[in-house]
C-alpha cells in the first residue's frame, strides 16, 4: 500500500499549473479520492503528480444572472451544504450528499469527479438533468462543453491533453421545480449501482418539463430522453419509468447483473419522478 516514487508539484497559480500540465505525461491531483487509492495499489504509477489543491481561484460557488458557477476544486461537502447551491440548484446539492462517505465528500472535488468520469459517479446524472456546461481551460484557450457532449465513454471525456476543468456552470433551477436524486449505492464502494437524477416543472396538473439523468447503467451517464417525452406528453410515471434504459446495454458485475440493474433503474426512476413531482409546485 505504498505508492511508487513520484515527483510532486503544487503550483500556486492557474498559469503555473497549466504550464506544468501542458508539458508531458503528468497526473492531476484534484482531491485524489480515486487517484490516491489507485496509486497505493500501484494500479496507477504516474511519474509526476500536479496537485491543484493550492491553486487560487479554482474553489468557490457563486450565482450570477441565473447561472450558478462552481469552481473545479470545490468539495462535494461544500456543494452539499452551500446556501447558493441549496437555493439555486438543489438537485446538485442533494446529489453531492450521496457521494461516497463524509471523508470522501470533505476532500473529493467536483472537477476531479467530472474529469475522472467514473461510469458510476453520481454527479454526471445530475449535471445532465441540469443541462450544465463544463468550462475547460488550457494554456492556450478556454471553452465550454455541454454535459451531454462531455461524458463520452467510461473514464473518457471531451478533455484534451493539457486541458483541465475550470468550473461547472449550472443554470439555476426554477423555484417551482421539483427535483430528486435516487441512488442504489454499492454496499462496499458507495458508488451508484444505479443513480437517477430527476427534475420536474409543472403547469397546473400537467408536466411541462421533465429532465432525467441516469448513471451507473452504461459506460457513461445519459439522459432518459424517451421517459422525458412520455411525461411531457401526459403519460404516467410508470409508463415513463418503464422506458428508462431502453436501447442501452446495462453494465453487469458480481453485485448486479444487467437485468437486475435495468430493473433497479426503472424502479428508482419511478421513485425519483414521484418525489420530484410531489416537490414541484
Amino acid at each position: 500500500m505504498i505508492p511508487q516514487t513520484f515527483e510532486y508539484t503544487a503550483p500556486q497559480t492557474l498559469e503555473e499549473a497549466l504550464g506544468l500540465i501542458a508539458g508531458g505525461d503528468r497526473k492531476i491531483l484534484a482531491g485524489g479520492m480515486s487517484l490516491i487509492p489507485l496509486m497505493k495499489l500501484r494500479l496507477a504509477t504516474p511519474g509526476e503528480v500536479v496537485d491543484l489543491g493550492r491553486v487560487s481561484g479554482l474553489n468557490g460557488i457563486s450565482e450570477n444572472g441565473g447561472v450558478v458557477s462552481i469552481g473545479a476544486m470545490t468539495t462535494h461537502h461544500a456543494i452539499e451544504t452551500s446556501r447558493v447551491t441549496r437555493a439555486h440548484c438543489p438537485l446538485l446539492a442533494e446529489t453531492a450528499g450521496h457521494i461516497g462517505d463524509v471523508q470522501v465528500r470533505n476532500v473529493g472535488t467536483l472537477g476531479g469527479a467530472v474529469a475522472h468520469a467514473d461510469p458510476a459517479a453520481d454527479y454526471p446524472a445530475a449535471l445532465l438533468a441540469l443541462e450544465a456546461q463544463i468550462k475547460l481551460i488550457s494554456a492556450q484557450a478556454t471553452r465550454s462543453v455541454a454535459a451531454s457532449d462531455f461524458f463520452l465513454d467510461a473514464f473518457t471525456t471531451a478533455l484534451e491533453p493539457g486541458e483541465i476543468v475550470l468550473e461547472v456552470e449550472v443554470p439555476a433551477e426554477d423555484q417551482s421545480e421539483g427535483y430528486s436524486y435516487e441512488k442504489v449505492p454499492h454496499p462496499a464502494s458507495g458508488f451508484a449501482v444505479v443513480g437517477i437524477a430527476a427534475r420536474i416543472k409543472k403547469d397546473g396538473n400537467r408536466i411541462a418539463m421533465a429532465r432525467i439523468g441516469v448513471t451507473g447503467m452504461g459506460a457513461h451517464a445519459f439522459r432518459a430522453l424517451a421517459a422525458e417525452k412520455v411525461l411531457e406528453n401526459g403519460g404516467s410515471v410508470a409508463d415513463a419509468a418503464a422506458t428508462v434504459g431502453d436501447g442501452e446495454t446495462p453494465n453487469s458485475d458480481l453485485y448486479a447483473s444487467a437485468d437486475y440493474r435495468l430493473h433497479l433503474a426503472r424502479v428508482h426512476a419511478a421513485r425519483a419522478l414521484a418525489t420530484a413531482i410531489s416537490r414541484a409546485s
Partner: protein
Amino acid sequence: MKISGVYTLNVPQERAYALLQDPAILAKCMPGCEGLDRIAENQYAMRMKMVLASISGLFAGKVTIADPNPPTGYRLIVEGSGKIGFMKGDGVLMLSPAGSGATVHFEGDVQVGGTIASVGQRLLDTTSRMLIKRFFTRLAAESAQAGVERVAAD
C-alpha cells in the same frame, strides 16, 4: 466473464477475414498494443500498454489463432499478464456476408485476475466492452484505408 458482440465491416467477407488475421493490422487496432511478433505458425508474442483513466500497466502475453477456417471464422486465444494482473480470453469469431460488407460475430469467455480484478470488478464489463468497441472502430478505419490502398494498387 462472458463477452459477445456483433460488428459490421465495410469490406467483403474474404477481405475482413484477411484483415482479422493480419498481425500488422491487429497490432494497430488493439488498444495499447505495442507490438505483435510472430513466434510460431498462428502464434504471436504481444506487448501491451493498457492505459485507462489513471490505471496503467504493461502486459506481456501471447495471441494464438486456432482452428482457422477461412473465410468463416477462427478461434482466438489471448493470454497476458503484468504487474497489475493477468487475463485470459478464449473466443470464437464468426464472419458472414452482409450486403457488400461483412458481419463479425464474436463470443467468448474472459478471465481476469490479480489486483486489477479484485479492485476493479465493477468496471471489468464496461471497460472490456469499451476496448472491444475501440478495436472494431479502428479496424473499420483501417479496412476503409486498406480498401483505398487496394483500389489505388489496382
